């Protein structure tokens, strides 16, 4: 790490943008493949070997597509919105530790920062929907936001639980605490953690507007939701933003609960690039789960969604918070341990 700051920044920017773009492209490919096989078909196959050039073709297509700015839209909002979705997502990668030393900025309050950027994302959806001057887009934007707001609560409560448990908001430190085999992962830290993980995962799905919570782009109701009026790369950027957000959500879940870049077995190396391997393996597994879930369930309604949040997730996450607090503070008092 002897690079001077500007070069570091440049390397980071290039690296992250390439990472996000490549991931978005190939996650779409993966998603289409996974969907295909779940449904007993093949998925993209004819464009390049195994359809591997499919994302390339889509990318070329989208880029060469006419960028329509429909009548009656607010051109500023219409153009800024996709960026407001993508840029914060890219910025969030600043603090995600891909390996022990592979983190762009090891920020003390990294966890909080990711949530701060995530809240900008909401603004992007809202302005995109609003700026489109399309009723479906407006309804969709309103839905996306109320959903995001509702799920931020249980998610933050769960995260607070984790902060209590780890007493740090530094993501790398959290990972370091989970070293030494699968049993040291926070997922197994206490019997409540699997539930906390589940809540976190559900909230992450909801926050990223993924099925079964993809109310914002419910095709059967709202055409294409907030990006109904977007064509070409405008739509492409929304898409990239969505996948970047999925990666962030899954990365956070992996960092908080599944040991980040730590290898699951003590005897297997987590040094250097192996750490990256473990991290990405876990993240991609979770992303696969996200896709698997998407192609399995029907969509919930806004009502069902809010019910789930208020009646199930929030009480249970509060309960977990209390019990964890008790476990940390009260249990030592009772048992007399320090």
């Amino acid at each position, binding site marked *: 790490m002897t690079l001077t700051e500007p070069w570091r920044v440049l390397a980071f920017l290039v690296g992250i943008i390439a990472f996000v773009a490549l991931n978005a492209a190939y996650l779409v490919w993966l998603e289409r493949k996974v969907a295909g096989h779940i449904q007993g078909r093949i998925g993209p196959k004819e464009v390049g070997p195994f359809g591997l050039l499919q994302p390339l073709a889509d990318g070329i297509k989208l880029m060469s597509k006419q960028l329509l700015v429909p009548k009656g839209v607010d051109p500023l909002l219409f153009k800024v919105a996709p960026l407001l979705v993508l840029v914060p997502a890219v910025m969030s990668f600043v603090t995600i530790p891909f390996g022990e030393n592979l983190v762009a900025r090891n920020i003390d309050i990294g966890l909080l920062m990711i949530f701060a950027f995530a809240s900008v994302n909401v603004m992007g959806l809202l302005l995109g929907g609003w700026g489109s001057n*399309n*009723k*479906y887009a407006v309804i969709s934007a309103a839905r996306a936001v109320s959903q995001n707001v509702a799920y931020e609560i249980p998610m933050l409560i769960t995260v607070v639980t984790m902060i209590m448990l780890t007493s740090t908001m530094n993501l790398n430190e959290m990972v370091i605490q989970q070293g030494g085999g699968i049993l040291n992962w926070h997922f197994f830290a206490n019997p409540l953690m699997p539930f906390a993980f589940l809540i976190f995962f559900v909230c992450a799905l909801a926050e990223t507007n993924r099925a079964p919570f993809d109310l914002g782009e419910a095709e059967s109701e709202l*055409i294409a939701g907030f990006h*109904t009026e977007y064509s070409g790369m405008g739509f492409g950027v929304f898409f990239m933003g969505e996948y970047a957000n999925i990666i962030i959500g899954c990365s956070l879940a992996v960092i908080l609960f599944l040991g980040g870049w730590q290898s699951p077995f003590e005897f297997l190396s987590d040094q250097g690039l192996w750490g990256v391997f473990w991290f990405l393996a876990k993240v991609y597994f979770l992303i696969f789960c996200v896709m698997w879930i998407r192609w399995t369930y029907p969509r919930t309604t806004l009502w069902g969604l809010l019910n789930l949040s208020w009646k199930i997730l929030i009480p249970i996450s509060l309960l977990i918070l209390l019990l964890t607090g008790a476990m940390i503070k009260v249990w030592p008092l009772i048992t007399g341990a320090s």
Partner: protein
Amino acid sequence: MSILNLSNFLEVYLVIAALLFGIGIFGMLYQRTMIGMLISSELILAAASLNFMAFSRFLASDPTTGQIFTLFIMGIAAAEAAIALSIIIAVYRNYKSIDTEDVASLQG
């Protein structure tokens, strides 16, 4: 004082805060809608917080003071926004009849 290390001078922040304040005041007088005025008042608050932060960074003996003040301002501002907006909505509901009768073109 080079143009590239402006960030290390208190005066720079004070000028920016003053600018925000001025813009906010201008907005207060210029905007006639309640939401527009609310937006302007948020700018004024931001100017105040910026001053607090700047003094806290450069002058205060206990650097947390300014930050905590800013945090409190944020809390108050959030509460203020919520209240103001619910008042605005109530006002709109009672004094304005809004009918969007225009049938949409075949969207989608």
